[in-house]
């Protein structure tokens, strides 16, 4: 469904998430559904005009086909949810056959989220994606807490994060966004390492590790025991981390975690994000995605900003003296 956009605002919402990459990643607006919450872009097509979005990130892809975790996989928590889907996906080869041929005809850029358990596998996937038509960028998930990798994820260690980023960077000329884990001790250290290793942008936050027990059954409500916490509940943690990361890196920062409306998105922009992703909130209100674009444009118009850039980092002193940390 490629429809003609009726734009309700004047402000320039364009953003380039890979300004130093010749292949660049220019988005017409900064609103992106998050990985795992928007399927492959097709599922919500009957409900919203997907082509209006800035971009979309597909469900996490792995080297091999995965059938995911046993059920139950999701449960509700106060203003949030836990998920342990377990990266159910057709594997990189099945994926490449199945989706990019459709996306090639779309106006909206498609970003592929990749997860793996070894540096070689990350690089292998990046290599395979490099010249696939219909793919605009790669988001490297170094933070998925549901994968058993010795219980320790890449994204908790600066060196490991750096190594993965370098390997992916070498394997592809596509724009590379590295998605950070909120479980790291010092998110700024990881972000800087990833920037140094050649990432075009960073995105954050992935889910926090959580658990909830059903007193009746005396067991976790999630078969996998723990799950990833997302939704409005985590927003304060996400805003803080985006603020921190945006204080120390020069590459674009994509903020996410609990965004459910334009006021939330503004918090992330003002903290220093150049674009935002929306995950859990899509489930409740898919129409929010396109409404967010309009409301953001109209907010900028009525606050005297001609472009999104006018508010990026507005609450973050580091944006006066970009590059110096004030945290």
């Amino acid at each position: 469904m490629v429809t003609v956009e009726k734009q309700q605002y004047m402000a320039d919402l364009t953003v380039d998430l890979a300004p130093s990459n010749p292949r660049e990643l220019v988005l017409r607006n900064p609103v992106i559904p998050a990985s795992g919450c928007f399927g492959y872009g097709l599922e919500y097509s009957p409900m919203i005009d997907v082509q209006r979005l800035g971009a979309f990130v597909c469900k996490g892809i792995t080297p091999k086909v995965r059938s995911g975790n046993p059920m139950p996989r999701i449960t509700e928590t106060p203003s949030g949810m836990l998920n342990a889907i377990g990266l159910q996906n057709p594997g990189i080869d099945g994926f490449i056959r199945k989706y990019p041929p459709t996306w090639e005809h779309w106006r909206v850029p498609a970003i592929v989220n990749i997860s793996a358990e070894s540096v070689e596998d990350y690089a292998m996937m990046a290599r395979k994606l490099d010249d696939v038509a219909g793919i605009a960028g790669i988001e490297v998930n170094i933070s998925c807490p549901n994968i058993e990798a010795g219980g320790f994820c890449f994204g908790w260690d600066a060196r490991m994060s750096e190594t993965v980023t370098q390997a992916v960077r070498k394997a592809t000329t596509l724009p590379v966004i590295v998605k950070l884990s909120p479980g790291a001790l010092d998110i700024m250290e990881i972000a800087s390492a990833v920037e140094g290793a050649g990432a075009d942008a960073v995105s954050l936050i992935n889910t926090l590790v959580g658990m909830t027990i059903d007193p009746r059954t005396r067991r976790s409500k999630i078969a996998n025991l723990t799950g990833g916490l997302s939704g409005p509940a985590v927003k304060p943690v996400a805003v803080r981390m985006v603020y921190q990361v945006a204080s120390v890196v020069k590459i674009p920062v994509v903020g996410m975690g609990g965004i459910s409306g334009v006021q939330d998105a503004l918090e992330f922009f003002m903290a220093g994000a150049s674009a935002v992703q929306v995950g859990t909130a899509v489930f409740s209100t898919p129409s929010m995605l396109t409404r967010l674009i309009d409301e953001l444009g109209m907010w900028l118009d009525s606050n005297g900003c001609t472009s999104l850039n006018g508010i990026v980092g507005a609450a973050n002193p580091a944006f006066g003296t970009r590059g110096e940390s004030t945290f």
Partner: protein
Amino acid sequence: MREFQGIITAKHPVMGDSWLMTFTAPTEVLHAARAGQFVNVLPRERAVYDPLLRRPFSVYGVAPDEGLMTILVRPYGRGGGWIVDRNIGSEIDVMGLLGNRFDIAPRSTHLLMVGGGVGAAPLLMLAREAVARKLSVTYLLGAANAGALLEASEIPGEVEYVVATEDGSAGYHGFVTDLVPDYLQWADQVFACGPGPMFESLRSVVLANRMGKRPSVQVSVERTMACGVGACLGCMVETKRGMKTSCVDGPVFDMDMVQW
């Protein structure tokens, strides 16, 4: 499939603690609605984030000419409770239609429906569709007691309505699934919806009493859902043909295909 804001036009108490909630809905949604499908209702104001996720409710009935849809809501917990507390005139935030449908085979003439509790809802919609097609319908409904049954006035007159109560206060004294063997010869197809334990005993009763694969049994299963459109992969049902989403591939499955 779309989001819409309905206006609640009627509330009617049923089954002791539940409510039939009737609200306005877009014409194309009403015309498209089929038995087994469901809608996802936001159980909160938009700017309040607890409880977070939409709640699925089977379509209980539609009146396309009046522009109205009805769902049957049992207030188990926080979401259901919020919904039944809405007043006439309030808005209700709905997403639908979602899911597949019960499938009446072209040659079927005798349909057995087996409902437990709020499982009555999708079967009632199905019974109306069957009656409109002039098929014979027997509708077995089970509940804890007489007060928790659906009033007979809700059931189309053409339907044979047989009830069972656990305390014997109405109809057969025992579980509704005890009645099923009597109808397995008669029925071309069985349709069922109810709580987990009902499915378990239905399955053993059917496996013990039917002849081969006939009659086939379609069940509407319940899973916690997040998206309702196949995007999150949270609501899977394990089937003999692999993992299926209960929101798009389901909620109706062939009983024999499900890995119980």
